[in-house]
């Protein structure tokens, strides 16, 4: 009961927060909510299976671009639906062809995918439509965007919890531990991985679609920025990628740290970012939550 009430109370609190903060504060809230959603959605697939995907921005950017292309032609809900379908179709095609790749090959491929999508869209815009940049004029307020992202983030965590209790969640955990054993125990590897990958991709795409009006002006190099993929990974790892609340726990402080660093040290920011990544991997390789659990267990035993 408390496991349900506590998050619900927190959600209500987060929902009324915009009334209390400045415009700048609201911007931070949107950013934090976005990264909580991205990191949680990323972990839904990668945290369990240990297939580290750097394709986050391929889906995120596709979502943003879908809105840029369709926002004048279709009503907003239909635009979101199209974005989700585009993300699902892309994930299905990519998943079917690559989820057999193992380890580092998958990492590299997923990174390449984001670049490929960016290049394809750039090529298409330059050669076919002749418009590289696009403007997004939607009458959604910053608060509206925040609430949508909050809802998407909450839905992502709820979905992860639900999956975690079911057969798919068990299959993903086993795949993360040993695929060979998984297959010989009767788990359909391709189907389990594909299901999680597509679900994760749809959420990543929707996150891109929902935040896109914040950009106002959209261009492939802006919305397909690979830093988004790296940040997502490091946030999830910091909090604990195979824990329900781990990615959210990692996303909030790191997002705030990045904001502060990029505002105060715009030139040295990438270097500091790199150092932070290394620090996380060295200091808390399994993530904060698992490390804390271990500490508590040791206390209990002692």
């Amino acid at each position, binding site marked *: 009961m408390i496991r349900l009430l506590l998050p619900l109370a927190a959600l209500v609190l987060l929902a009324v927060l915009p009334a209390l903060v400045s415009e700048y504060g609201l911007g931070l809230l949107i950013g934090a909510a976005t990264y909580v959603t991205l990191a949680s959605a990323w972990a839904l697939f990668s945290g369990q299976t240990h297939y580290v995907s750097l394709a986050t921005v391929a889906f995120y950017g596709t979502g943003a671009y879908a809105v840029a292309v369709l926002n004048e032609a279709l009503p907003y809900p239909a635009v979101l639906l199209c974005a989700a379908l585009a993300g699902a179709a892309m994930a299905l095609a990519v998943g079917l062809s690559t989820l057999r790749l193992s380890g580092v090959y998958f990492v590299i491929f997923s990174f390449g995918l984001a670049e490929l999508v960016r290049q394809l869209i750039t090529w298409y815009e330059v050669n076919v439509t002749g418009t590289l940049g696009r403007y997004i004029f939607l009458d959604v307020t910053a608060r509206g965007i925040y609430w949508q992202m909050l809802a998407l983030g909450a839905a992502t965590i709820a979905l992860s919890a639900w999956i975690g209790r079911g*057969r798919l969640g*068990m299959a993903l*955990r086993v795949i993360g531990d*040993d695929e*060979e054993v998984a297959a*010989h125990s009767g788990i*359909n590897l391709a189907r389990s991985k594909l299901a999680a990958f597509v679900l994760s991709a749809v959420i990543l795409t929707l996150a891109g679609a929902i935040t896109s009006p914040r950009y106002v002006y959209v261009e492939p190099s802006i919305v397909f920025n690979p830093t988004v993929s790296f940040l997502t990974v490091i946030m999830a790892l910091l909090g604990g990628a195979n824990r329900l609340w781990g990615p959210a726990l990692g996303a909030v402080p790191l997002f705030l740290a990045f904001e502060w660093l990029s505002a105060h040290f715009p030139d040295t920011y990438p270097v500091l970012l790199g150092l932070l990544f290394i620090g996380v991997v060295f200091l808390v390789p399994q993530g904060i939550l698992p490390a804390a659990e271990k500490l508590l267990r040791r206390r209990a035993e002692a």
Partner: protein
Amino acid sequence: MSLLEIIGAEKRFGGLRAVDGVSFSLGRGEIAGLLGPNGSGKTTLINLVSGALPLSAGEIRLGGRRISGLGRDRIARAGVARTFQLVRILPSLSLRENVMVPAVFGRKAHWGRAAERVADAALELAGLSARAALRASELTYIDQKRLELARALAAEPELLLLDEWLAGLNPTELAEGVALIRRLQGEGLAILMVEHILDAVRALCPRVVVMNSGRLIADEATEAALSDPKVIAAYLGEEADA
């Protein structure tokens, strides 16, 4: 009708014929030893039956249905369970979760209480009940082997493939292991066991099939096979090479 039929099974790795035209059958509830010197193709044959490797030629049937060509998961769900020569467990999961997996995804696809019952029974058989909540990575090598067997049993298979499961046990553990396998076979499970410990083979298997360089060189009663000049030559040949 036989439970397992291996018909002209062949596996090539480049120019090497690791399994070369092997044919034999195993009845329901029957136990047989799979012998042969190092590198003779025993593990490869286990891999072919369990679907870990595709056949280069030939066919494998279970209960009259062709299973060669199916994926590993479908063969597992058809009723084939296996252990690995180099033990494989799910290190980050508890013993109970390790054993739940085949109960949930195996032939009977249990869920909830039913899956827990099957898992607990398998842990009990393997003597691991008291440590059900422990993480599998914390087990000793021998207990990991026990866990692997428990996992195979939780699939409620018709055919169990053991790849040197008794290797590395001390005399007491070996006696327990032999008793456990005998009990499983007594309950109607068909077992094909790769084993180098001949005393255990004598104690458990009335029949053995013997491989050498990928070929089947004997398929007969255990005592007869062990005094068969072809079999002795195969094992001696290995020692002469060494």
